[in-house]
């Protein structure tokens, strides 16, 4: 029997394997569904926009794929807890709640990976992939995936019925990818108020990437706010999800 951290790591990877790798192999259409919106936006930006707008749509697509896959943990976590009682089955085992959350989050990343790979290839072809941009992109994708999956998991704990869960994932996905300055430059926001874009983790990641790619000259305060926003969101949501995980009900 494995014990300690190794056992927890294997438990997380096992959940990622069954809910990510195996599920992706048996239901690949999900990948297409997560790609439709970013590809459609890329298409329109390419047809009606200029090169800068197309690059913005490529960055937007990457953020949207990471975020929408991350947030879709909402449906899986609620389904596992409410419908099939998989969470109840696992509570009576030595797995720690955060290992469970981590496993589910990783499985969302597995679903995101084909789409991310496609957009990274397209971004390279568009000449976006400098070493500096690649590093910033990796950090931002990890931050967006972490925050959106933790946000999705935390929100899932609030639901007692699956009926309301599915639309919530779509609503959040749209709000987090279309309202913040992802598909438009933060310079559209009033001067001195660009930091508002960092109120959403997706907006924060986009502003950093737009800046690093040289597409938009983001204000220094907004850039600082973006980095702080991603760190604070990740830490706060990790704490919140660990408190709300419902491993033992009162």
């Amino acid at each position: 029997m494995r014990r300690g951290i190794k056992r927890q790591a294997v438990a997380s990877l096992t959940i990622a394997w069954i809910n990510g790798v195996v599920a992706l192999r048996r239901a690949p259409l999900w990948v297409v569904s997560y790609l439709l919106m970013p590809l459609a936006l890329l298409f329109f930006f390419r047809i009606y926009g200029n090169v800068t707008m197309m690059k913005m749509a490529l960055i937007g697509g990457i953020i949207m794929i990471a975020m929408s896959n991350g947030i879709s943990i909402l449906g899986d976590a609620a389904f596992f807890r409410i419908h099939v009682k998989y969470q109840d089955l696992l509570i009576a085992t030595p797995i720690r709640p955060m290992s469970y959350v981590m496993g589910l989050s990783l499985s969302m990343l597995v679903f995101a990976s084909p789409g991310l790979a496609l957009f990274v290839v397209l971004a390279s072809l568009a000449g976006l992939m400098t070493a500096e941009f690649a590093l910033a992109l990796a950090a931002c994708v990890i931050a967006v995936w972490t925050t959106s999956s933790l946000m999705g998991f935390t929100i899932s704990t609030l639901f007692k019925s699956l009926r309301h869960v599915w639309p919530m994932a779509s609503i959040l996905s749209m709000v987090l990818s279309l309202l913040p300055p992802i598909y438009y430059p933060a310079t559209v926001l009033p001067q001195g108020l660009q930091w508002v874009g960092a109120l959403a983790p997706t907006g924060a990641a986009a502003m950093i990437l737009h800046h690093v790619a040289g597409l938009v000259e983001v204000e220094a305060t907004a850039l600082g706010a973006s980095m702080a926003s991603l760190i604070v969101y990740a830490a706060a949501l990790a704490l919140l999800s660990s408190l709300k995980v419902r491993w033992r009900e009162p």
Partner: protein
Amino acid sequence: MVFIFVLKVLRGLAVVSAVVSKGVWKRYRNGVVALKGVSFSVEKGKLVALLGRNGAGKTTWVRIASTQLLPTQGTVEVLGLDVVADPWEVRELIAMVPQEGLPLDILTPFEFVYSYLLIRGYGRSEAKKLAREHLALLELEPYAKKTISELSGGLKRRVLVAAVLASGAEILFLDEPTIGLDPLARRSVWRALKEAERGGQTIILTTHYMDEAEVLADEVVIVHEGRVLFSGTIEEARRAVGHKFKVEVYGDLEVEGYEGLRLKGVTVFYVDEGGVDDVLEKAMAKGYESVVKPTSLEDLFIKLTGERIEEGD
């Protein structure tokens, strides 16, 4: 930390009782009181059935004992460990089939059982071996490579039971493991549970099937409206009925010297051999149909609650 854990496990080995429930109360936030001082104990290596109608409090008790729910008052000890104070030590020792639980339908039965064992800490080769053995035990081998979504409800339930039995946990909680299963599938689960009991595992199952309790259990605990009305062996339960036979008369009937229990158009008389004829004669004289049956566990439930166990379903 390791020292404390070892001490706690050793303490668990020293105790005779696998599970001890003392005065457990549960009041939910909405004010519903599901448990009202539930006390009973389960010896190591025994198979105990918690019997009761839907809503009796069985699932609430199981969720408390399996560390999923906090009691309002009282304690449950699993192998000497308090489920509230030492949940992580308890979780090393238990496994549970949740009520209405289902295996993940995107997986095959083998993948589900195997992944459950990996999550519990088994190595890959051992997990594979145990998964194969327990799928065979539950007669699921022919379906091992189909996805669970292709299986019937009964087969899905058996996959879940296979996973939990394969865990090798010392204490198994099974909440209505055979609900919705056809008679053949139920017998397959029964055989597997008996096998696990012979292997030394302690099993606590909730059910509202009287025949299941009579066939499987060493002891029964009858729970009704949050209270334990009876706790003892099957033999003790049969003796507690007090009579060998029951006569069910399909109509309202009074017989001098015998107490009749009225249950939705049927009057039930508990009698010994001499009394059977007395009741039958009166019933025939009134033109009522009647049936004589040997008493069973269900009759103890009826005597204790004044209701049949299946009426609420």
